[in-house]
């Protein structure tokens, strides 16, 4: 447990440091980029004096150590900078967008793990044709990028059948259904698309891990005792096949999050992904940096949480 805590702290610290270093190590001057953005948007280019003021305002005139302490103290105060494009503090932007992404990622990651595990068990249990069909299904879905799954669902269920809205997170200017139901209705397709694009790997791992457990001596003993196959499967095989699956859930959170970023763009869900998409078009670097910082920290913490639960439930399996 202590090792896990130390590891998590180190990873968090590394993300904070990287977030500071990436823009500084990469070639280019942020003010050049800012000036180019202003130029493209048709505004007058920055004057030399304005540049110098900006440089001072962001503390870029100090040496690297000075900049780093400035960055750390702002971070400690919860100050993530100022969004050039949206003209408001980045912190407020993130606070408004984070719940959407967290909800989407959490729901989809859990559903993908459950669906994949159930189908993987089915494949291992029945074998033969069922196994073949499920594995082919999983590997075909693996060949489709997540945003195309999203667009496909959009075409069928929103454009074709008109069951779900085309985009957004809420119906604007309309007091029809209660807000919560309206939001769920908007999030159904993104949630389904993200679940579908994430479940295949759970199916393949469960199938593999169940097959390995089935060959273990204690399963042969259980069978020899005359237990019904069902009992053997549910009481003996399943619990022992679960830990690798929980581990995988922890490992895949980052991937599901990356999927959510793209899926949010497809469906216009107002989460961190759509925020990042808007920030790319507007060259809004403070926003992109904060999205990286926040999602990195969230993934590290969530992974640690899953690990901790796993260790608490089955201490002897923890590596």
């Amino acid at each position, binding site marked *: 447990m202590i090792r896990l805590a130390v590891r998590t702290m180190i*990873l968090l610290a*590394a*993300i904070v440091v*990287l977030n500071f270093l*990436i*823009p500084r190590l*990469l*070639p*280019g001057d942020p003010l050049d*980029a800012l000036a180019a953005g202003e130029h493209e948007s048709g505004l007058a280019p920055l004057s030399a004096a304005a540049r110098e003021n900006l440089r001072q305002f962001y503390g870029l005139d100090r040496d690297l150590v000075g900049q780093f302490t400035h960055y750390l103290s702002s971070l400690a105060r919860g100050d993530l900078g100022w969004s050039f494009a949206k003209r408001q503090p980045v912190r407020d932007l993130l606070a408004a967008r984070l719940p959407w992404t967290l909800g989407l990622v959490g729901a989809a990651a859990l559903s993908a793990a459950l669906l994949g595990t159930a189908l993987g068990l089915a494949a291992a249990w029945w074998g033969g044709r069922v196994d073949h069909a499920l594995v082919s299904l999983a*590997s*075909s879905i*693996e*060949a*489709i*990028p*997540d*945003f*195309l799954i999203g*667009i496909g669902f*959009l*075409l069928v269920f929103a*454009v074709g059948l008109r069951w779900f809205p*085309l985009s957004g997170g809420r119906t604007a200017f309309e007091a029809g259904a209660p807000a919560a139901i309206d939001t769920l209705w908007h999030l159904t397709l993104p949630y389904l698309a993200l679940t579908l694009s994430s479940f295949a790997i759970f199916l393949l791992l469960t199938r593999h891990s169940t097959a390995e457990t089935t060959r273990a001596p204690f399963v042969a003993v259980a069978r020899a005792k005359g237990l019904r196959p069902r009992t053997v499967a549910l009481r003996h095989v399943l619990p022992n096949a679960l830990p690798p699956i929980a581990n995988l859930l922890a490992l895949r959170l*980052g*991937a599901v*999050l*990356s999927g959510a*970023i*793209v899926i949010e*763009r*497809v469906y216009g869900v107002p989460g961190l992904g759509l925020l*990042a*998409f808007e*920030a*790319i*078009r507007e*060259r809004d*670097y403070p926003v*992109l*940096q904060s*999205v*990286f910082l926040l*999602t*990195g920290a969230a*993934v*590290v913490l969530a*992974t640690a949480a899953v690990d901790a639960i796993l260790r608490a439930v089955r201490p002897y399996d923890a590596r």
Partner: protein
Amino acid sequence: MLASVLLGLFVVLGIAGPSLAPHDPRVAIGRPLQPPGGRAVLGTNDIGQDVLSEWLIGARATLIAAIGVTGISTALAWLVGVTAGLWSRAALPLTSLGDLVLALPAIPLYLLILALVGPNQATIVLTLGLLSWPAFARIVQATVREVRQAPYVEAAAALGASPVRVAVHHVVPATFGLLATKVVLTVRFAIFAEASLAFLGLGDPGAKSWGAMLGTAFNYPLLFARGAWLWWMAPPALAIIAVVWATSVLTMERPRG
């Protein structure tokens, strides 16, 4: 069989696509969003450019991403894994670095880096290639460590083979069998990542690519209303799926080893 044909076609398109294109994809050849037919065999896009030519030329960006990223990532992963497996002093720093890279959320990190350096084919390939090695490096390292304990390696050392000879002739070859899987997974990763980045607006603005076609099309507000998705989005979408599917089928059919 079908998979090999598809992959062969993809490579041919990637190499010869630009010379096969019937029109210059930067020049309008008809009305905007013209359905397939006439001069535009696959119709036109929102500014009247030929979709077929865009598609043919777009194959190259995908092929470059697939080959470049897979080459860099596989070589780096293999080098790191073998080094960490053979040289115990390097193991801790290398695995820690790998763990860190593995813990970072991929897409937000790529978005930040590419927005800062400016997306072009070289920076995209470098970013994806340099950040995708840790998972496979771990597997190579584990294999090297396992093989070093194997009886045949002990036997070779007992027969008087030098440590270098043991490493080069007996330990390292054991990792070659793993490379095929890595190549397939990375080809898939590279194609998906390149397309997703282009879709999010961080593709090479100077090069046509399948992902960029999908991104531009999806940004067009009347895409679904006018049915243009059928000829504008389906070709690049199906091409991406076909290439990734073919790559994974080919390795599954490979004889084990």
